[in-house]
């Protein structure tokens, strides 16, 4: 019994995490949109609007373009599944979930790359020009985002001596890391990658309807009904997943432990607070900056890569001086 209970609790924590993840992701997107509208002085759509949007797509007939191949339905599914699996691995309110050993950062990068590849193939699927334009831009962004993220992981791995998100969160929560320049640089690099991956301003405009400047939306133009639902849901989940990831790595303080039920409520409140805080900061950042030209984005991410590398170099120097 003594051995089974922690495992059961870990599974239970995972279940609670999964339910909250899937249930709250549209709400988070709605909250961000509402906040953004307020910041712009508009009333904005209700917070529940994304749920209605998803329900509307559920009730719509799914149209299949006549030039689509048989692989057409699988791209949204692959995109949705890989983002979902990534979401199930990243701790939200408690560390030590049953999926914790799987949450290696490199596996996560792989899952995000899989989602990106599926979306790009979805854009190329019907052979219309906007999808291809979106896919080729996404390919460019991906190159720099992946390089920047890998360099940044090095900083985490060096400080925390772990490469799983769970291990990093535990190390940052329990160890007395303190505020370091390296972590500040790593945070800046991670934020730049997160903005690119979730398709927010300044790299992409989630509310954009001008086809020439779209990236993520351009690849989904030919999708409708339940396939579009999967893509849109995946985009909402991706926002939630990245916010949870940044919360778990940079703000893991007082995160609960899966084996200790009494620590869950505080962890849950804290997680909600982190998401709420980020949902306020993100729109404020978005309205204060303009969307970049496509070829400025590699420079933006190149700076992120440089900051990530600098974070590592600072650590090396600090260790040399310290020893």
């Amino acid at each position, binding site marked *: 019994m003594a051995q089974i209970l922690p495992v059961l609790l870990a599974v239970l924590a995972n279940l609670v995490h999964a339910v909250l993840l899937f249930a709250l992701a549209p709400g988070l997107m709605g909250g961000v949109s509402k906040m953004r509208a307020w910041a712009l002085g508009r009333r904005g759509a209700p917070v529940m609007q994304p749920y209605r949007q998803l329900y509307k797509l*559920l009730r719509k*007939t799914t149209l299949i373009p006549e030039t689509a191949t048989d692989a057409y339905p699988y791209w949204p599914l692959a995109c949705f599944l890989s983002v979902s699996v990534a979401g199930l691995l990243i701790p939200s309110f408690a560390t030590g979930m049953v999926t914790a050993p799987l949450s290696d950062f490199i596996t996560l990068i792989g899952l995000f790359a899989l989602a990106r590849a599926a979306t790009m193939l979805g854009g*190329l699927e*019907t*052979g219309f020009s906007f999808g291809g334009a979106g896919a080729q831009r996404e390919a460019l962004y*991906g190159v720099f985002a992946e390089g920047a993220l890998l360099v940044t992981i090095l900083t985490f791995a060096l400080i925390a001596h772990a490469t799983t998100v769970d291990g990093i969160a535990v190390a940052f929560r329990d160890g007395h890391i303190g505020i370091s320049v390296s972590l500040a640089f790593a945070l800046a690099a991670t934020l730049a990658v997160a903005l690119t991956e979730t398709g927010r301003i300044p790299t992409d405009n989630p509310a954009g309807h001008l086809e020439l400047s779209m990236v993520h939306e351009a690849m989904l133009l030919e999708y409708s009904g339940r396939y579009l639902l999967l893509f849109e849901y995946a985009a909402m989940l991706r926002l939630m997943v990245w916010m949870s990831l940044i919360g778990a790595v940079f703000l893991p303080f007082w995160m609960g432990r899966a084996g200790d039920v009494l620590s869950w409520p505080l962890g849950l409140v804290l997680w909600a607070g982190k998401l709420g805080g980020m949902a306020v900061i993100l729109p404020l950042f978005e309205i204060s900056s303009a969307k970049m030209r496509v070829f400025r984005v590699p420079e933006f991410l190149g700076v992120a890569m440089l900051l990530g590398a600098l974070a590592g170099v600072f650590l090396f120097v600090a260790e040399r001086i310290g020893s």
Partner: protein
Amino acid sequence: MFGLPGAGMQLRLDPLSLLFLVLLTPQMVAGALAGEARSLTYWLFALGMVLAVTAASAFTLIFGFELMSAASWLLVLRGDQKPATLYVGIAIFSAACLVPALFLPASSLAFVLVVLGAGAKAGLAPLHSWLPKAHPAPPAGVSALMSGGMIKVALSVIIREGFITLDPALQPWWGNVLMTAGVASVFIGALRAMLETEMKVLLACSTVEHAGLIAVGLGLALRAKAMGDASLTALGLEGALLCALAHALYKPLLFIGAGEVKHATGTASLDWLGGLMRSMPRLSGLMLLAASGMAALPLGPGFAPEFLLLHAALAAAGTGGIVARIGFSALLAVLGLSAALALGAAVKLIGVGFLGRPRSLQAAAAEEPGGLALAGMALLGVLMVPLALVPGEVLRLMAPVVRELAPNAALAPLGYAPLPLLGLGLMVAVGAGFGLHRFGVRGTRGAATWMGGFGKPPVWLPFGDPATQPTATGFAEPVARAIGRGVLPDDADPAELLVLAPLYRLHLKGVRLAEKLRRATIRERLAFIFAALVLFLLALGLLGGG
């Protein structure tokens, strides 16, 4: 049998040679099924590879290696004359380095010669620029075996010499040499794969990338072995060997598939293909599976090696001197960039070639290839499944090889478990399927594709105007603009400008000099002989007198 008088051929079957035999067999079968079964040269080529990986003596190794080079040269000649000359030049260079290296005592010079000789054959930068020209030239079955097999044979020579034969003289900087060559190949290969439009050239560039990845892993392991880091040695070796195994399955599949596409449509240029998923569904499915390996996507066969190599680079950056650690950070950045470039190349291969609308009538009318070629591809595809789903078990089977190469290596269990990930994915899929089925509107309806505002195509273009569809060139354009034109000026490989062009100029000068000597008049020749005689007598007199 052949062999040196009195000694003969000496073969051996230790774990390393066994691994390489296992790695070569499926692709030989697949290549034979793809139409090479009746070619004597093909089987000589295969025999050369088998001899080279099982050789127990230097003579046998050189015999096998050169048999492989000569047979593959004949096979390249069958496809195209032009790259064959370059190819034979590289083969001679590689032999010139390898033959003395194998008879030298264990020393750094021997290692450098082995890396030059075998590295040129494996397509490591800066001696890689022949590979994207020579590998696509012969028929697909041969290309498959050249890319999937010959590269590995050359790397196996580096492994055997570096880790076993030359072990007594092992130095940490040997690893740095391999890593530098490897990371340069990774970046150039991935970038060129992203920019190329011809399918087989794209695949050959991706081979350069994967040869580089294997070399990076070997270099990390070699350096760690020299410095006595047991766990990093194991990580690097496991990554390199698993990468070799995975690449030996998906790259031949892709090459054979590209050959079948060329056979069915008359071209392998992605700019003339499109929509093949419709006309060749089975071939396209296999190509998609193999492309997921090439792009190192999770749940595909290529992810576990990439995972191990990235972890090895992370671990290497964690210890050691400050300059080395900054170097390893840069290595990580380049590996990340290249992984995403490889993903872009794979998406381009599938998205432009197999999805979308046909860009030519031939592409629209393509037919599924014959059963034999498809069976060979399916064999490779089935063998990829264990590598994709239970890479940890495959690594456990490979443990004797790692122990043979580095007896003190500390093997750790693999941190990436695809089966639980697959389980999680299936659970979400069942949940999503239930939700969509229970609450959603079922069924689908066909609809006209929105053409993005372009006019109605003429009637003789049933699949719409191909010019309104993004091409492979267009797909690569943002990357070409942001990175490509800076690294590859005038679309030429930097290795060609820096290595081959000066060599060519030197060659030209030599030829002119030789021609001048040949055309010398009788007086000039007599004067030359007379001068030589005088000089000889002078030297003899001075030396004899002294």
